[in-house]
């Protein structure tokens, strides 16, 4: 019985450790004072101690809106590239006739395992020599390749649950390979493709190392701006931005879970 209590107490502490740091940010972003801790007024729930000034300053200061535009442009382009190429490749990998399957899989997943700092240094050398450093295109290509593993893993997992007889049925009814892909296979694996794409987008939306090494002032994204905010002038504005990012994370999480229930064999502790 005692062991059971110790176990539950330990687990509770572990969950608090996981979630509390993130939750602490939200109320602090409404702080009326430029501090990173709870003021006495906040603890007394004095309405005067709370304000929206840090939220206002996000919109007053053009850097954050510019960063958001950059993040979206880069993230969406990289996601489209990674998802289209990644889905095609997953279709090939799901075919039992694919030669050297394991090696190819190892290659395609390697961007996820390689420390980003190594990739970023190599990309800086290589993309500079092509004149792609400090351009949007360079960062889009870099983020796309970093997003590829997420798409490949998710779509391959979805395809492993796909009944190939459906394709044979479509063929026997006279559909060509392209038609049966568009009309039969793609609609069925769409949740998996979407959730792979969401993973790739989230990876790009949170990526800062490549942007630090390869991006210039024109390519400042939200995480890059947060990095600057933490390193240079630490202002509670970044807590307000962080609150937005937490809301974004929760939305992504629920979307992925919803897609998973729709049949995208995807992530989160999957089988």
């Amino acid at each position, binding site marked *: 019985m005692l062991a059971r209590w110790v*176990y539950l107490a330990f*687990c509770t502490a*572990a*969950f608090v*450790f*996981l*979630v509390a*740091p*993130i939750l602490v*940010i939200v109320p*602090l972003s409404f702080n009326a004072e430029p501090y*990173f801790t709870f003021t006495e007024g906040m603890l007394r729930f004095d309405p005067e101690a709370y304000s929206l000034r840090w939220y206002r300053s996000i919109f007053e200061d053009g850097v954050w809106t510019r960063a958001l535009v950059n993040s979206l442009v880069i993230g969406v382009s990289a996601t489209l*590239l990674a998802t289209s190429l990644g889905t*095609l*490749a997953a279709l*090939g*990998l799901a075919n039992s*006739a*694919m030669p050297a*399957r*394991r090696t*190819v899989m190892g290659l395609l*997943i*390697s*961007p996820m*395992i*390689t*420390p980003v*700092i*190594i990739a970023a*240094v*190599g990309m*800086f*050398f*290589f993309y500079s020599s092509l004149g792609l450093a400090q351009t949007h295109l360079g960062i889009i*290509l*870099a983020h*796309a*390749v970093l997003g*590829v593993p997420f798409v490949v*893993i998710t779509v391959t997992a979805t395809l492993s649950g796909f009944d190939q007889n459906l394709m044979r049925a479509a063929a026997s009814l006279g559909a060509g390979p392209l038609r049966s892909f568009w009309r039969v296979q793609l609609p069925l694996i769409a949740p998996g493709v979407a959730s792979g794409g969401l993973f790739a987008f989230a990876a790009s939306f*949170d990526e*800062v*190392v490549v942007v630090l090494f390869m991006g210039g002032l024109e390519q400042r994204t939200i*995480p890059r701006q*947060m*990095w600057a905010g*933490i*390193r240079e002038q630490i202002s509670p504005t*970044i807590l307000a931005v*962080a609150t937005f*990012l*937490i809301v974004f*994370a929760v939305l*992504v*999480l629920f979307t992925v879970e919803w897609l998973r229930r729709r049949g995208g064999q995807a*992530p*989160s*502790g*999957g089988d």
Partner: protein
Amino acid sequence: MVDQVIAETGLEASKQQARQRRRAVGLALPLIAFVLASFVAPLGTLLVRSAYDPLVADALPETLTLLRAWDGTSALEEPVYATAARELLQAREERTLGQIATRVNRIKSGLRSVVTRSVRKLRNASGDSWRETMIGIDDAWGEPEVWLAIRSAGERFTLRHYINALDLMRQPDGSIARQPEERRIYLPLLWRTLAISLGISALCLVIGYPIAHLIAHAPPRRANLLLLLVLVPFWTSLLVRTTAWIVLLQTQGVINSLLVAIGLVADDGRIAMIYNMTGTFVAMTHVLLPFMVLPLYSVMRSIPPSHVRAAASLGATPFQAFWRVYWPQTLPGVGAGSLMVFILAIGYYITPALVGGSKGQLISNMIAYHMQTSLNWGLAAALAAILLVGIIALYVLYDRVVGIDRMRLG
């Protein structure tokens, strides 16, 4: 007749198979090409950079030819001085002199100013003997050391960066020896990175194992709710989580203020919990914990509770039932989670850079330092290459133990 039919069917089947094969390869090929061009090629460039540096060799070709014929000790003759003076002045015109001086200075510190200052003065120098002029400007030009340094910096292909990155040095006679203990920087940092990563993996296992167990064997509704508590941090931006720890742990932060408020700590005795090793350790454990919990959870979920009950009914104590029956079945999850956390921890950059202060830096931060501050890109590339080899080894191990085709996100 029958044989012929069989042969034809066989032929048809193998044709069909070849077609399938072509199709599978054709589908995968665009992505393979894309990954090779935008990911593998950059890593290749990195490896080239770590061992190839043509700058000095291109700038001072004739001087280097003369120096290569030199025994390294005897006094140099006028032609060497004349050629060097001409090529160095030329380099100054082409604005590469600064980079040459930096590279020579890395071989033997103190030589940067000797080179740049001398060449500045050489511009206005006139005389019959370049040798006397150069030695007149700086005595150093009469010593073999400058010339040896220029000769080493002029090697087009070089292991110099790897020698530096492994805390070795080349002795005057050409042999390689270890740096004296107080001058070793990179190997201790590498060991520290490995030790911290190991510590973080162990901590993640200790914290993650019970909560994965709790989630895996809870009723479905509660399990989903608890799983959310793991997934929210997993999806939350890394920078947000790092910011959160700064807010909590800094000296004017939430935890210190709380401790002061309840009188556990004096106001002038606030604890330094961040911008040091503790900060790196705590924040990284938090960031990597979901990578441990999720694989453990998915393995534990597939273990029928009847196994432990059967052990208990056969007279095992709760500890025996756990240790002899449950734990062995979770080993695949333990292996997958620990290896994943370890691999990710070794290459971590952002979190230590923001909360590690000067004491909590890892090998990645050293690579960034040489890229951005010291601008010794060759050394940065060599350090990155060494780290890359380690990661590839771990990746192969992961493939053997877990299988990369069984990797799931989260």
